[in-house]
């Protein structure tokens, strides 16, 4: 009841004092989010195409990749790249030392690419066979069919699950605090431990909510934009 005893102005002052630290964390959260999304989305596509490849080894590699990265906890993957990879490479007399932020980006990109690969694969498989047949009857090659006909239609269909993943990603960035990257969650935790006051958690929650709200808006806008050609004339 400590909080209630304080006057409103004291509370606001405390919030004001917390903000620089939290916003610094929020910027790092945002950096992880944007870098992960920008790198993992394009990486997901070759794995999606590879899962349907006519060449068995390519298919196996892609499926194993997806299996491993979807099948193990993201936190475990963070630990692996942060603690075990340096030990392993050391024993091979290679010195690969990654800082927390780089480790986080690599792990998140690999992890999210696996999820996106599965989403893309589902999207590609949902396209009607007739589209392939029409393309073939017109003499389009496999790659022309894929990149000109199938993938543009797939992009529209996967927008809802992709934006869903993006919202999950915003929240997953909090995991990075375990390898001491000073993102929003870690900043909030630091303030809470220091001041014995949970206000920082509340503020962090509001910032996460703001991010997810903006993302939801953006995905709605994109979905509308991409379904323009489906709107019937009135």
């Amino acid at each position, binding site marked *: 009841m400590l909080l209630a005893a304080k006057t409103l102005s004291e509370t606001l002052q405390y919030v004001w004092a917390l903000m620089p630290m939290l916003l610094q964390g929020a910027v790092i959260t945002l950096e992880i989010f944007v870098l992960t999304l920008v790198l993992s989305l394009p990486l997901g596509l070759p794995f999606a195409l590879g899962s349907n490849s006519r060449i068995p080894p390519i298919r196996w590699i892609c499926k194993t990749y997806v299996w491993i990265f979807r099948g193990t906890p993201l936190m475990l993957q963070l630990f692996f790249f942060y603690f075990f990879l340096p030990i392993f490479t050391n024993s091979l007399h290679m010195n690969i030392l990654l800082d927390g932020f780089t480790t986080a980006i690599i792990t998140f990109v690999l992890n999210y690419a696996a999820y996106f690969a599965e989403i893309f694969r589902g999207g590609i498989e949902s396209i*009607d066979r*007739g*589209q392939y*047949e*029409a393309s*073939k*009857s*017109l*003499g*389009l*090659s496999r790659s*022309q069919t894929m990149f*000109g*006909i199938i993938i*543009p*239609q797939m992009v*529209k269909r996967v927008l809802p699950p992709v934006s869903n993943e993006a919202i999950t990603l915003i929240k997953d960035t909090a995991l990075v605090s375990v390898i001491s990257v000073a993102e929003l969650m870690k900043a909030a935790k630091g303030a809470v431990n220091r001041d014995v006051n949970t206000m920082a958690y509340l503020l962090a929650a509001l910032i996460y909510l703001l991010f997810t709200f903006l993302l939801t808006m953006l995905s709605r806008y994109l979905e509308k934009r991409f379904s*323009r*050609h*489906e*709107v*019937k*004339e009135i």
Partner: protein
Amino acid sequence: MEIVLQMEHIIKYFGSLAALNDVSLTVQKGETVAIIGPSGSGKSTLLRCVNHLETITSGHIRLVGETLAETKNGYVVYPPEKEIRRMCAYTGMVFQHFNLFPHLTCLQNISYAPIKVKGEYPAAARKRAEELLELVGLSVKADAYPAQLSGGQKQRIAIARGLAMDPQLMLFDEPTSALDPEITGEVLAVMRRLAEQKTTMLIVTHEMGFAREVADRVIFMDNGVIVEEGTPAEIFQNPKSERLQSFLHAVL
């Protein structure tokens, strides 16, 4: 007469089912050939073998004098994929369910393949597409998306798209079967115009009136074989086989 399509002793198995059982067929340049018959008689399968949407189990297919498939020592041999693609571009196809590209406008649907496959300049392909839109009577829909069209309009765009590659042979796979009866007429009118212009066409259809009126030759298939073949008059007024007689009795 120039032969556009020659199919000899085509056998096609789906598992243990013989969809085509020793079918031979020749189409001459400028001819309109209609294939009629009950569902499951193999007529669509035959059509789909022409442009490699189905591969044959045995037989010989020649398109415009080039061998698409031949049987050597009991095995069917197709040329490499690139060659198949080049040869299949001799044909254009119109599907029962249109299969237009939903993310492209009508004009883009028509000009896409000429630009990508033939390497035509976009401006030239656009001009040709506009001519084709006029031919099918849909110039006003150039910038509309397929979802904004009626079924009949979609099929007319699909016909224009098939024609855009200047095929030697147009294949129609039940082009009016997915349409409401009152709008089949607009699609058939376009096809009639093509027949008048001596476009070579192979048409799988349930429209007996159209086959009788427009086709130079009618083929009746049942159970994977050609039962009877002849001019519309021979097939419709003077059917010889009992199977054709009972089929015509049922549909007319």
